[in-house]
């Protein structure tokens, strides 16, 4: 039952990934990426990880891709131009891709030759066991991730804030005034 589903979604994810790289229009690329995310979520279900599958659909296919699509439509981008400078990147990319593919086949061969030592455990993917591990053994990393998310919120607000010329002059005038006050205090 799992086998045909796995190969269906594996083929779908590879096809969507190739279409992501192939299309010049970023909008088509984004839609292909959503296809990759959804088929990977289905593969996670065949791996007995329903929680990760749900989070994949919610966070990746939902939140992140909506953000990316918003930015693509907001900026109204042109089609991707072919390389004009740095033409040698085509050769670099081809060599890099062939090397990585060779490594992939080597790993596939090596892992399939090793004796099977898997420990079957149907409990491992349940949400409760993930939550237990998250809030006992891995509490510190979860806290660090929380702080990192807060920093990302503040950083993105500061990054995309746009001050007009009059606002910049106001900020400068205020700084000058404060420096003047400090000098008078001495």
């Amino acid at each position, binding site marked *: 039952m799992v086998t045909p589903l796995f190969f269906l979604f594996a083929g779908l994810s*590879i096809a969507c990934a190739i279409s992501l790289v192939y299309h010049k229009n970023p909008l088509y690329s*984004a839609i292909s990426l959503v296809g990759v995310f959804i088929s990977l979520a289905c593969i996670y279900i065949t*791996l007995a*990880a329903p929680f990760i599958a749900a989070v994949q659909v919610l966070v990746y296919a939902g939140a992140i891709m909506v*953000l990316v699509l918003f930015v693509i439509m907001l*900026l109204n981008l042109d089609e991707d131009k072919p390389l004009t400078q740095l033409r040698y990147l085509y050769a670099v990319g081809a060599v890099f891709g062939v090397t990585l593919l060779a490594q992939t086949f080597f790993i596939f061969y090596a892992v399939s030759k090793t004796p099977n030592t*898997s420990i079957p455990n149907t409990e*491992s993917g349940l949400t409760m066991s*993930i939550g237990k591990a998250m809030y006992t053994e891995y509490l510190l990393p979860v806290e660090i991730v929380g702080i990192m998310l807060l920093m990302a919120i503040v950083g993105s607000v500061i990054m995309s804030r746009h001050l007009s010329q009059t606002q910049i002059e106001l900020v400068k005038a205020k700084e000058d005034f404060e420096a003047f006050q400090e000098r008078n205090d001495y």
Partner: protein
Amino acid sequence: MEPNLATYLGLSGILFTIGAVGVIYKRNAIGMFMCIELMLNAVNLTFVAFARHYGDVTGQLFVFMVMAVAACEAAIGLGIFISFFRNKISVDVDDASILKN
């Protein structure tokens, strides 16, 4: 052929390769960003496959952390693209050359 650890690792390696080649070929910053997301997803698949293979929940927790990092990356990266677009009216990485010379 029953899918085992080797098949999952092979799929993950193929997706990672496509993402890495895409990062090199794309000239569009948002396209590069999406290829990086594809590479992160390939690594996530490896984590989940190993978690299944060893019956341990730690791999799935790491997937969670990677997703949080990807969300932060999306927020900050797209903020950078917007402020870059304001200055250059494009998100082509070839135009990001003011630090040259």
